[in-house]
Every structure is written in C-alpha cells, then in structure tokens.
C-alpha cells in the first residue's frame, strides 16, 4: 500500500491565519475562545471561537472579492491559498481536491442574502473551491459529522491508492451559525464558559469556526523528516445516533484497527490528540476507549480549549497539529484542565513540553451518527 505523507498546511482560525501563528498561540497557551453576552446566535451568553469578519475580509480581499463569497468560503479559500503559496509548482491539473464540512453554508437557509440557493449544497462548496483556483479533477466532498476532517485524510489515502491522483489538497471548514449553535443548545451541550476537557468541573462544549488545508502525497518531502498517516480506521458504535457509547466500543475498535494497519502495538504510541469536547459523555467514552487500548499512561491533550469544537474542520486541524508536534518534538497543553473527571486513568498534558520524541502519535475523533475515527501518524526519517 502507498503511504500518505503530510506536506504543507494552513490553518485559518481565531488563533491566526497561518499555521505558525496558530502554533505560537498553542505554545503560549493562548485561547481563541471568547465569551459573548450579546451575540447573534442565542439570547443567552455563549463562549465560542469566532473568526473576526473584518480581519477575514481584509485578508481575503488580497485574493478575491469578499462580496462574492460567504464567510466559510473565504476561510476555506484562504486556507487553500496558504498551501498553494508554499507550492507554486503544484500542477493543479493533476491535484485531487477533498473537502470536509458538516454544514457548509447552512446559515443561508435562514437568509440567502445575495447568494443563490445552490450555495446551500455541499457539492457546490466543492465546485467553488475548485473553480476559484482552477483545479481540474472533480472535488470529493465528505460530510460525516465531527470525524469528517480526519476521514477526509483517510479518503485521500484510499483515492491515492486506487490511482486517482498522487497528490491532493484536503480542506476542511465549518462556520458558526444560528442553526448549529441553537441545535447544540437544544441538546443542552453548550458551556457559557471556556470548556474544560476531561475535567471534573466540565460543563459542556464551546463551538468554534475555522478552516484548514493540507497538501498530501504518496511521495515524501525531499531532504526533510516526514510525517505519514501510517494507519487509519473508522468504526460505528451501532448503539445510539447521538449519545456516545458507554463502552467506547467504536472508538476502541478504530484504535485497534489503526494500530494493526500501522503494524505497531500500543506501546509505540507517544502521545494522543483526543477529540475531548468536554461533554460528560464524550470525555468518559474516550477515556474508556483509551484505557481499554492500554494507553492510559500516554500523554494526551484536547485542543478544544483553544478552538472550541470546529466540527468538520476539527479532526483535520488536529491532524495538522499532530504533524507539527512531531516535527518540532513538542506537546501543546490541554487548556483549562483542573482535576480528572473521567472514571479511567488518563494522562492529561497541562504544560507545554519540549524535546519530547514523538515517533508515533494517535489522533481520535467521534461524532453524531455513532461514528468514530482513529489515525496514527508516524515520523519517518530523512532516509526512509
């Protein structure tokens, strides 16, 4: 089987419009979340990761007319541009385009503004990105709840192996809308304060908006240490459409299958980037799956305290962060952790750590519909 190497990337988020700006904030423990007493989404206060529209419009006007594109499109286009800027030689005729989103431009359902109804369709979002840059291949759009962004990498790997293309840009994005915020609120899942993944005093999730893009290829980056996707697996809980499994079944199975594909045992894993949404049930389920996989001692974090839950972008952003942690031999802290609030032993990283060798990192994600995903990233030497 061909490998999938992770090349250049770009994250557009409240923490910055370049990956390096995002990493700076992660290292210093600076959150992108803000508490808004008055907001356009709910009558009650919310705490969320919001991309400043004015700054976004300013940045976007360098590459296009902001009036022609929705906020989400602007974020996603800027993310792809960030990758293309670093790869001017890239042949767009042969580069695949894979898009992940849960709700796309769903805010237009309430008010189309000056946009056409087609903009509501997720495949249209794919075509907008394709046409903006002049990609030639038909975009592939993945919409599989909160594992979408990571699943899109697994899709890229499969399509490369089937011979569709050897290089692709994977882009993920979701934005805040009254639709999504009111929905999570009706689930009584939102926290009015900064979320506290895995903590005893956690009171729910924060939502966030962001986009990210990454170039992937079956060829490694020359003269460089490379990070590859060594194993990936998804599994359904077959238990409940919105509640996480009490036994962590689907996530446990995903972790086991991804270890098998990576041909390693759990002892090889050096760190875990969790889903860690800070709901009671998600965090507990994850702790159970991690414990069943004998990974309870392994340092782990959730970055939801920085970004909130960015839905279809989250697992892609977190995969990109895994790549940089591995290249830089560093671990970003899990913000707002107080005291463990899950029934199994886990090892939450509370301070920034340097000089830590991460040759294998596990990324987990779970979502509505009972879906789960595990990915294992591997550090490959210059001569591999």
């Amino acid at each position, binding site marked *: *089987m061909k490998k999938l190497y992770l090349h250049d990337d770009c994250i557009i988020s409240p923490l910055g419009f370049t990956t390096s700006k995002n990493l700076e904030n992660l290292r210093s423990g600076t959150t992108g979340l803000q508490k808004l007493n008055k907001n356009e989404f709910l009558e009650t206060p919310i705490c969320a990761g919001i991309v400043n529209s004015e700054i976004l419009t300013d940045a976007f006007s360098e590459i296009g007319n902001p009036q022609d594109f929705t906020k989400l499109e602007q974020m996603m286009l800027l993310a792809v541009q960030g990758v293309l800027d670093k790869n001017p030689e890239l042949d767009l005729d042969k580069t695949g385009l894979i898009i992940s989103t*849960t*709700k*796309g431009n*769903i805010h237009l*359902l*309430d008010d189309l503004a000056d946009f056409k109804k087609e903009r*509501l*369709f*997720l*495949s249209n979002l*794919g*075509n907008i990105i394709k046409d903006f840059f002049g990609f030639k291949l*038909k975009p*592939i*759009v*993945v*919409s*599989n*709840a909160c594992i979408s962004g990571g*699943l899109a990498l697994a*899709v890229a790997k*499969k*399509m490369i*192996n*089937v011979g*569709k293309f050897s290089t692709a840009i994977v882009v993920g994005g979701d934005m805040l809308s*009254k*639709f999504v915020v*009111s*929905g999570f*609120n*009706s*689930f009584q899942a939102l926290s009015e304060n900064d979320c506290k993944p895995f903590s005893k005093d956690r009171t729910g999730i924060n939502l966030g908006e962001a986009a990210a893009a990454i170039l992937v290829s079956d060829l490694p980056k020359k003269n460089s240490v490379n990070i590859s996707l060594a194993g990936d*697996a*998804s*599994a*359904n*809980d*077959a*238990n*409940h*459409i*919105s509640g996480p499994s009490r036994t962590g*079944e*689907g996530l446990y*199975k995903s972790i086991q*299958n991804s270890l098998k*594909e990576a041909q390693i045992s759990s002892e090889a894993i050096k760190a875990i980037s969790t889903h860690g949404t800070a709901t009671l049930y998600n965090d507990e389920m994850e702790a159970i799956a991690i414990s069943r996989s004998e990974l309870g001692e392994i340092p782990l974090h959730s970055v939801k305290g920085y970004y909130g839950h960015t839905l279809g972008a989250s697992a892609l952003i977190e995969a990109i962060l895994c790549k940089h942690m591995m290249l830089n031999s560093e671990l970003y802290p899990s913000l707002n952790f107080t005291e463990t609030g899950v029934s199994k032993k886990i090892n939450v990283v509370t301070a920034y750590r340097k000089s830590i060798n991460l040759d294998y990192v596990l990324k987990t994600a779970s*979502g*509505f*519909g*009972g*879906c789960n995903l595990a990915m294992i990233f591997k550090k490959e030497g210059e001569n591999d």
Partner: protein
Amino acid sequence: MTNLGVEHWVRITKGKIILDGEVIFSSEADIARFLKTSFKFLNIKYPKFHKMDRLSKLGFVASEIALKNNNIDEETALVFSNNSSSLDSDQNYQESVKEFPSPSLFVYTLPNIVLGEISIRHQLKSENVFFVEDEFNANLIIDYSKQLIESKKANKVLCAWLNLHNDEYDVFLWLSSESHKKEASEEQIRKIYDADYD
C-alpha cells in the same frame, strides 16, 4: 486489483421499490404515506422507525430489503452518497429554530445519521463514510469500496445513492462483495441506476 460483484440491489424511486430488477412494492401516495406503507410492507416491529427523519426512513427501508436473508456481519461497511445532504431535515429544523429549536429534529441534520440508524439495526460496527456529490457517481463509491475490501477493512460493502430533495426521492442501494458472479463495474451499476422499471 479486487473485482467487486453485486449480491443484491434495491432501487426506490417514483413510488416503486425494485429488488434485483423486480418491482416488489408500489404506491401512488405522497412521500409521507409512501414511507409509512412501505414500512408496513416490511412487516417488522421497529418502533424507532417512526422517530427517524425521511432520509433515514428511506435508507432504512432500502437496506432492510437488501439485507433480508443476507449473510452479513459487523464488518460490512457503509459507503453512501447523495446530492442534497440532509437538507430536507435541515429545513424542518430551521422552521423550529424560529420558536423552540427541536433537539429531535436537530439530530437528523447530518447526512450520516442514516448510517448510524442502519448500523444500529444490523449491528454493523464498521467503516462508514458519506459523500456529497453533484449527481450519482458510481465511480467514487466503487473505488472506495474496493479499497476497503483490499485493505481488509471490510468484507462486504453496502453502497448507496440516497437522495431526498423537495419530496422527491431517488434511492439506489447495493450490497457489494468480492468475486460475486454479477460484476459491479461502473458501467453495470450505472445501467441498473438508469433503467426504467415501469
């Protein structure tokens, strides 16, 4: 490279349910009534069906028929796609947002919820993916399924195009496995999808 075959296929469109080329159920009624009577036709007890959104109901009925008497296990993967995502339920939920946002409507505002419903019903603890496309594209589904089987992540794949928009439904679901005698090439699959069953 792995060759996939079709074990069974189900087509649901314009008031008809077709199994392996044969019309097994038809009704002139509107979609709500059609879903209700087609569920009765299944002759099973499954109260959860009535709680599902219409997209899930369509997927449930189709999979129930395709998987009847079929030898599947928890490693049967689900590879689904459509054009309108969960827009039908999105619109219903959006209506509720004006007054009291409904959690039971919100939960169906993702296209992959139907994968969860089918997984629960048949206890499939398998690989799931939902793609959104401009139109039915057998190629992507077949390629993805082949990769799942080749990499031993699944032993069979339940593939589907499951679209619902403005009360119009268009369903094509097939159970795919290795080296079955009926070949599931892109042309073959396309032909079944395009055929008229009057």
